[in-house]
């Protein structure tokens, strides 16, 4: 497994495209983490001046709620990670290097595993960015910190990882299926942004919760702030366990179906 990680790392470590895309993601996500409260406060100030109801002050960044808040806001940017996976899977086809790798002695299973590992490591990196941003922001915005507070809702990190990993694996599958980067990006984005939204609208709720993108976004619910509680809206404050299972199912499904796709294909 280390061998496969090493091989894939060599492929990307010297690719400018890879680092540029990763940097864009990093800058965007860190900006979102660090400025989301400021933006939200602007709205709140506005709300305070227009509603007679007293709006309580709160911080997005206080432990342990920060993990859910950050994971919720950061989750929207998982498409960037998925696109990196998509671009590099399809590039193996456009350069014909998948053919060469297999000829040189990689099995089809190993090649697939190398891409699963690549998706996993990217998702892990994204999770680590959240973790470290969370630590910095959390310590800066929580008055009294205890260990149990810091790690109180740390399971949201695992959910965040699963959310990104599942979408990356979906992108990987689309890449292996379509092989052509332009086509793959368009169809993937089309499904992600438009098609599933339409499907979710048409299908009854009991069915649409099983759709892949739907289940990914259901993993981490909208942060339940004091403000919202006042309006009697209740969002889940824990990771949605059924969605953990649905996302895990899709992850395994995407790996499995890609394996079937690769097993008998000519390169």
């Amino acid at each position: 497994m280390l061998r496969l990680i090493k091989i894939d790392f060599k492929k990307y470590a010297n690719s400018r495209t890879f680092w540029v895309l990763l940097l864009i993601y990093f800058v965007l996500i860190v900006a979102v983490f660090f400025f989301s409260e400021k933006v939200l406060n602007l709205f709140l100030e506005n709300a305070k001046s227009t509603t007679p109801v007293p709006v309580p002050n709160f911080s997005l960044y206080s432990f342990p709620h920060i993990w859910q808040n950050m994971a919720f806001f950061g989750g929207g940017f998982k498409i960037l990670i998925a696109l990196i996976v998509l671009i590099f899977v399809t590039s193996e086809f456009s350069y014909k290097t998948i053919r060469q790798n297999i000829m040189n002695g990689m099995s089809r299973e190993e090649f697939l595993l190398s891409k699963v590992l690549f998706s996993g490591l990217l998702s892990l990196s994204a999770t680590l960015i959240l973790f470290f941003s969370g630590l910095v922001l959390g310590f800066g915005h929580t008055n009294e910190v205890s260990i149990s507070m810091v790690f109180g809702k740390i399971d949201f990190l695992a959910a965040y990882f699963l959310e990104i990993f599942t979408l990356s694996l979906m992108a990987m599958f689309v890449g292996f299926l379509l092989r052509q980067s332009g086509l793959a990006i368009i169809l993937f984005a089309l499904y992600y942004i438009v098609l599933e939204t339409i499907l979710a609208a048409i299908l009854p709720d009991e069915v649409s919760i099983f759709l892949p993108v739907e289940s990914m976004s259901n993993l981490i619910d909208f942060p339940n702030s004091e403000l919202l509680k006042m309006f009697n809206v209740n969002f889940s404050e824990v990771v949605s366990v059924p969605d953990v299972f649905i996302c895990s199912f899709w992850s395994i499904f995407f790996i499995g179906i890609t394996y079937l796709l690769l097993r008998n294909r000519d390169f």
Partner: protein
Amino acid sequence: MNNPILEIKHLRKTYGRLLALEDFSLQVNKGEVFGILGPNGSGKTTTLGILLDIIKCDSGQYSWFGSEPFSNQRLRIGALLEQPVFYPYLSAVKNLEIIADIKKVSYDQIDVQLEKVGLIDRKHSKFKTYSLGMKQKLAIAASMIGDPEVLILDEPTNGLDPKSIAEIRDMIIEIADRGITVLLASHLLDEVQKVCTHVAILNKGKLLHNGPVDEVLSSSAMLELRADDMVALKQQLQQLDFVDEVLEEGTIWIAKLNEEKDPATVSKLLAQQGIYLTHLAVRKKSLEKYFLELLSDNNA
């Protein structure tokens, strides 16, 4: 003597309605330089692709090193199929490091192989900056990573200038001299004739002929003969049962033989009839003539 490295049995492959390979069987033994000769589109690359697991056959089997194919065997095989394929944005060294990692060998050989193909000075240049000849040489260097026991080359001199062609042929001969089994696909007869010990001729997915190059050459041997009495010579020749036909060519007779005969035997037989030859030579048909003949027979 017979030490099969590769056994192919009844391979068949179709692409949609196109039959690419039909009932293809072959055995390649250790140390042979085996040429697969055929015009473009005859199934050469398909065959090699199947042997390297990048193409799945419809039916039939093959075995490498006497056992069922699995990916680890390819670690013992070096391969170059059609055009050289590398990561364009990576340097030659980085590309070869990836191959060494795949083959589970150390990086020690990388410089040695680059030195051999004369690319050591450009080893840190990106692959996309290489000329076609350099790319092809890098591909040869890449195929030698991991000390392969078998080397598979598909049209290794395609699109190269004459100097590079000569260099690459010398490289192949040098590799074969080290006892490495070579499988070489080519549409160039001259290339196969110069480099190979064995040849299989392929057309439209069918194996037409297969055997040692020498055998292919001599199986259709002709004799050039001259004697003082040309008329008597012709009469005697026509009475020999292994002579098919006697043709005139300038001042000599050309006897087409239907089986291989030692020239000494022919000379002795004629001498017994009182005809003493002043000229006797074996004329080997070039592989090209044979090749074209086979193809036209097949097309007819």
